[in-house]
């Protein structure tokens, strides 16, 4: 394919999911099979487009200098045009690759997760998770999972979600990026609240929406400031040397930051909301109320990655005026601090969680912290690398946990004891025999997350971050991240041990079952990437392995930046550190939890950690209560009802007085009696006297009109012509 045809193909990538959304909402709503066929076909088409684009990008020599880019005029803004366009450079090509794969896998997984092919539930309602259906077979009744009542709706929403993500990735400017960003925000609201019959789901949806909105407002301010400062929102126009230089030197007047720094921080706050970084991390664990494919979608493949992606996009802006090896500028310091803090902060909470999905949620927050910290340190490639490997193995883990929950629900339906929470890890145990595929894939995902040496993708990407931190002398960050990595391995092993190892702790776990191929196949595909994706980025100077496979990733993604980042010298310290933390964490996790059977035996169930440092309660007191008071008491009661209504009530009688005066002294005598009634009387009188002519007989009218014609015509003729 030529460069041009690939570029035009890029335009088409986001469209199929959007069309699928429209089709499902408008037409195929009633037909579940048709709906998921439409949605998956759309995801497949987008995947195909993404792969073609990616492949062509890889093939192109010096792709960083010749990206696929095109733009059209959109809005006239005075003398210039606001342009929209697409841009695939190495960064977005790499992101497109993992987005295409994970989105397609999640779509396929959803078919099984929502029990396609099962009977409709006995008493399922829209807005509530399915409760199972009673089936009679060989004369004896038993309960099987029932199909999701709003099956088509789910596919419509994730279709729209996929559209938002693809739009964000392929767009060449901040405005369309923001459009995709907001579409995803809307979809995450809709999907977290998918089971809107559950109050907890409703609240979680609102929480997610409101929290991310805070970040988005700052981001919009940042975009506006950027447009004000540069007159454009297109990346390639902003990231020119002159523009960056100007931005880096002009002071913004806030905290002594340069314009570039302020804009970067404003945009970064958007990311803090979207990627659930401290202090706006609170929405993400609650978002687990949505169906599991949604969790995977939001927390692995798309939305949170979008946040990191946006920061990576803005890297040149963030690092304007900084060069490799120099001390970090203030914006970078801020970013690095937030990232590192979040990484360790979330990891400590994850240790004390019992819900299988919540552990993963905090783990996600923590891992995103790694990436943010890496960006803050200027380790651009390491951040991208970890973003992609993390997307694969975290999607794998979420889908795997969904598979576990699904298998557990099967057991719950079998025993009929609905008091057992199928998501609580202490209700599980021994699932490796019941669900072998899930177990092995989950193990791969978990080891990748822990950074199990050499074979897993997570090791290579995390190692690169640590190496970067060490090499550039950011020792505080290095230590923080190392501790966080240790805890990551620890809670991951805790999770695996509690879930899969040992013996079944409940009857439900005994009756858990492996799931259908639609759920397990995506797991297998993703676990393949969770292992192999790390191998494309092995550092060249790594002992033994280095250089066997060329460090393609560094070459390729590094081409995004104008200045190719230098290759790090190999250092044994970070390698040993990561080996130690990964293996040590895993070992201790197994050691501590191999015999733990109930929450009471768990030494780490510290209330402070279990309750997430009381952040929710703190926000409740600091923000929500005052806000409610402000709106209900101050605005509504005092301002609105007291002050404004009072003024309005004064207006009422005054206007009434003026009105009645006009009515009595002008309207009634002058308008009504003289003009109104008088003219009516006159008309009536004329009509009464003229009405005998109106016989209703057409022929008489005709005769009359002809007579008039003759008279007038004759008069005119004789008077004027003669």
């Amino acid at each position: 394919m030529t460069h041009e045809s690939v570029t035009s193909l890029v335009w088409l990538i986001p469209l199929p999911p959007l069309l699928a959304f429209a089709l499902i909402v408008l037409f195929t709503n009633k037909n579940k099979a048709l709906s998921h066929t439409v949605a998956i076909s759309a995801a497949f088409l987008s995947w195909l487009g993404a792969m073609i684009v990616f492949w062509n990008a890889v093939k192109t020599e010096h792709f960083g200098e010749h990206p696929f880019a095109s733009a059209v005029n959109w809005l006239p803004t005075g003398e210039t045009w606001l342009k929209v366009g697409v841009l695939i450079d190495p960064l977005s090509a790499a992101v497109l690759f993992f987005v295409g794969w994970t989105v397609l896998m999640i779509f396929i997984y959803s078919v099984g997760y929502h029990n396609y092919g099962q009977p409709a539930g006995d008493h399922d309602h829209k807005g509530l998770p399915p409760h199972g259906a009673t089936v009679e077979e060989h004369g004896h009744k038993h309960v099987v999972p029932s199909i999701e009542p709003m099956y088509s709706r789910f596919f419509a929403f994730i279709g729209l979600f996929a559209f938002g993500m693809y739009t964000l990735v392929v767009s060449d400017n901040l405005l369309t990026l923001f459009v995709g960003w907001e579409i995803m925000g809307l979809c995450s609201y809709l999907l977290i609240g998918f089971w809107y019959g559950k109050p907890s789901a409703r609240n979680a949806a609102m929480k997610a929406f409101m929290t991310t909105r805070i970040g988005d407002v700052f981001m919009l301010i940042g975009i506006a400031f950027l447009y004000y400062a540069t007159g454009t929102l297109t990346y390639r126009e902003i990231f020119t040397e002159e523009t960056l230089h100007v931005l880096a030197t002009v002071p913004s007047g806030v905290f002594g930051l340069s314009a570039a720094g302020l804009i970067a921080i404003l945009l970064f706050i958007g990311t803090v909301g979207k990627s659930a970084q401290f202090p706006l991390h609170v929405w993400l664990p609650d978002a687990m109320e949505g169906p599991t494919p949604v969790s995977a979608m939001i927390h692995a493949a798309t939305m949170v990655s979008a946040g990191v992606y946006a920061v990576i996009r803005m890297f040149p802006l963030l690092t304007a005026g900084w060069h490799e090896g120099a001390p970090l500028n203030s914006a970078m310091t801020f970013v690095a601090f937030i990232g590192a803090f979040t990484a360790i902060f979330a990891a400590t909470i994850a240790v004390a969680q019992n819900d299988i999905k919540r552990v993963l949620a905090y783990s996600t927050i923590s891992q995103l912290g790694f990436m943010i910290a890496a960006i803050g340190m200027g380790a651009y490639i390491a951040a991208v690398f970890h973003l992609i490997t993390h997307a694969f193995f975290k999607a794998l883990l979420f889908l795997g946990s969904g598979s576990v929950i699904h298998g557990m629900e099967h057991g719950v339906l079998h025993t009929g004891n609905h008091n057992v929470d199928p998501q609580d890890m202490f209700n599980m145990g021994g699932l490796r025999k019941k669900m072998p595929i899930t177990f092995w894939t989950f193990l791969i995902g978990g080891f990748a997350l822990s950074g199990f040496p050499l074979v897993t993708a997570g090791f290579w990407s995390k190692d690169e971050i640590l190496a970067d931190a060490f090499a550039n002398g950011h020792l505080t960050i290095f230590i923080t991240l190392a501790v966080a990595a240790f805890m990551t391995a620890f809670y991951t092993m805790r999770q695996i041990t509690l879930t899969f190892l040992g013996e079944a702790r409940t009857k439900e776990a005994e009756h858990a079952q492996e799931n259908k191929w639609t759920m397990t196949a995506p797991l297998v595909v993703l676990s393949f990437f969770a292992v192999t994706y790390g191998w494309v980025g092995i550092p060249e100077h790594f002992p033994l392995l280095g250089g066997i496979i060329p460090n393609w990733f560094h070459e390729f993604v590094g081409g995004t930046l104008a200045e190719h980042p230098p290759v790090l010298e190999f250092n044994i310290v970070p390698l040993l550190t990561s080996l130690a933390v990964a293996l040590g964490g895993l070992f201790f996790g197994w050691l501590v939890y191999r015999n733990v059977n109930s929450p009471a035996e768990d030494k780490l169930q510290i209330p402070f950690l279990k309750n997430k440092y009381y952040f929710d309660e703190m926000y409740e007191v600091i923000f929500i209560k005052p806000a409610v008071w402000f709106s209900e008491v101050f605005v509504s009661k005092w301002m609105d009802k007291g002050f404004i209504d009072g003024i309005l009530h004064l207006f009422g009688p005054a206007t009434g007085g003026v009105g009645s005066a006009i009515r009595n002294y002008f309207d009634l005598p002058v308008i009504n009696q003289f003009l109104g009634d008088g003219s009516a009387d006159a008309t009536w009188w004329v009509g009464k006297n003229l009405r005998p002519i109106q016989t209703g007989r057409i022929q008489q009218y005709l005769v009359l009109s002809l007579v008039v014609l003759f008279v007038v015509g004759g008069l005119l003729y004789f008077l004027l012509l003669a």
Partner: protein
Amino acid sequence: MIPLSWYLILAAALFGIGLFGVLVRRNAVAILLGVELMLNAVNINLVSFWRYGDVSTMAGQVFAIIVFAVAAAEVSVGLALVISVYRRRNTVVADELDLLKW
């Protein structure tokens, strides 16, 4: 040869007769018959003006053709109205259709 005046007088007479029919006939259908006569008178005029004017312009014949179309339209709608009125009022006498009077 026949002078133009003969045709014009014929047309005028036909027009007058048609007008008479329109003005005096009681039956609505008969009134429409009168209208047809008037239209034919017009057509005779048009065609004869064509013949006695510049033959190559064809304007007279073209307008006569259009008058044909108009006549067909007028008759179809007119008769449809008459039939519709007959269904509702059970009469087609024009003098009795005087709901529009005072």
